[in-house]
């Protein structure tokens, strides 16, 4: 049986390390990302 038909292999392999695994070294704590500004009326505003 050809290797690519093996039962363990997903049909569409994810690229190694991305995007599900960001590749961050384990010894570094995750850096907090900037928070979005709070929007008045929950952002449901129109002009």
């Amino acid at each position, binding site marked *: 049986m050809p290797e690519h038909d093996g039962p363990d292999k997903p049909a569409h392999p994810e690229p190694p390390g991305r995007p599900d695994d960001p*590749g961050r070294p384990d010894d570094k704590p995750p850096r907090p990302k900037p928070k979005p500004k709070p929007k008045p*009326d929950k952002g449901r505003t129109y002009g």
Partner: protein
Amino acid sequence: MSRNRWWNSPQHSVEDEQAWFADTGLDFALDEELFRSSEVVVFRGNLRLGERASPASVIYPPAYDAGQHPLVVAPALDVGRHRAPNGALCLDHPVLGETAPMCGAEAVERAERLWHLWEHDRAALHEEEADAPDPWGNYVEYADESAILLALPEAPGERGYLDLGISSLSPCRGSLLRLRQTHPEPREIAAVPAVAELLADERSIEGVWQRLDAPPPDPGLYGIQGWLQREHSALLKRAIDYAGAHPDPQMPALLGFVFPDEGPERGASHDAWLFLLIRRDDGMEVPRPIDLHREDAWLRQPNLAAISSKTVAVVGAGALGSQIASLLARAGVGHFLLVDPDVFTAGNRVRHELDLTDVGRYKTAGLADRLRRLNPRCEVRERRQRLGGLDAPMLSAIQAEDDQLASELIGADLIVNSSADSTAGFHCAKLACGTGTPVLHAWVGPGAWGGRILIQRDGPQPSGCTECLARWQEGGGVEIPPLPEDPHPVEVLEAGCADPSFTGPGFELTAAAAAAVRVAAQLLAEQAGADYPLVDFDLLTLGFRAAIHAQPESRKGWLPVHPDCTICSG
């Protein structure tokens, strides 16, 4: 201007962005030379999918700290319509995440995710976009001088109608540009207070004129003809000769009479004009002249005369902003700065001040014409760009153009933020902090069931901004009336990643615009020392309708600065 850079603020820095790239293992580096020379932040590197790489730039907008996310531009990457003609990738696709990316590294991760889905799971993209229009397929590069070209499908049997609006041929109007006197002595008369509706295009027309001691006896066409032939036959012959000498045989000559007439106030006298169009075959028309005096507007609203010297900047020329600008022009505001990057579409007309003759034009261009028709003496400047955005023609010009726009905004007497884009509102608020330029924020809620007017002012007791309002709403401490809103709101997405609009009637917008203009007039009148009531609130909450009634209501209150506001804290 450097103090206003996002990377100079306490919350953000370029080093943070570099660290986020490093933490996520992405090979992107700051373009140091561009940063030093133009203060524009761009990271360059490669998007990666397995062993493949595609060069990309991450470009940060000036309003990054206001919530505008970085663009990822990858000119060589094939992701179909998910890449704009300028190379920017569409990262707001729902399958990529619910909210906009919040840093450059996250934007790159999304871009790589988009590439992966395009290559390996295109169905996921297609399912999500089944109801969305093609973001780029309907786009036309609009310019004032461009013709409209439509590529129609060639399937046999298909047919339909096309509506084309050509604004340059309407309306029928002309301006008397120049007046020379030949008798009793030659001289140029510079200012002519007259605008006359003359021809169906904007060709110049020439002719002769004469001052009379008294009005013509009969303004009707036939009476005028007999009077002309009896008393002014020599002048009539000269006008016919003028028309005969014109290379266009259809072009008439202009015959004008100026005479004393009563008005504009009872007992006063002013120069009135009678214009006649004389053709080379002796045919004659009486066009309808308009005497346009500077004082005409003030006779009906004398307490607002002082605001004619004021400058109002309107950020967002949409349904609300266009009506606000038009009402301010009618109120006599003499100077406008209109800021909007968008083009007017046919669907906009249900709520916008413009109409079908303006379809395909920039909203600022159509609105500028509209304001000049309402007040030919008002000065209107246009800026076709998104405040704090990336509309500059060159990367190196991004910050410089935004700085230029910021200085023009701060130079205005009042900034009206009527943009649906909340980041533009944050950027407005930030620009105005500490400058003394008041900002009037105006918006409506879902379905236009209600609206708010927020006045952001400096002074001994400054009022809060839009972020302050959001923080008071979240954490309490100040009573904020609820905004009436449609419990089942529907959004309309006109094209791709355009700001979504809402379903709701235009007349509710008109009520919100009228309330905003009343407040704007109060602020301008206070600055000018005019006789009009002062504004005794910071926040006005408007209700237009509810589920079982549609009666206007309003509640006013004060809005202090919130201690945690990142805008007001500098």
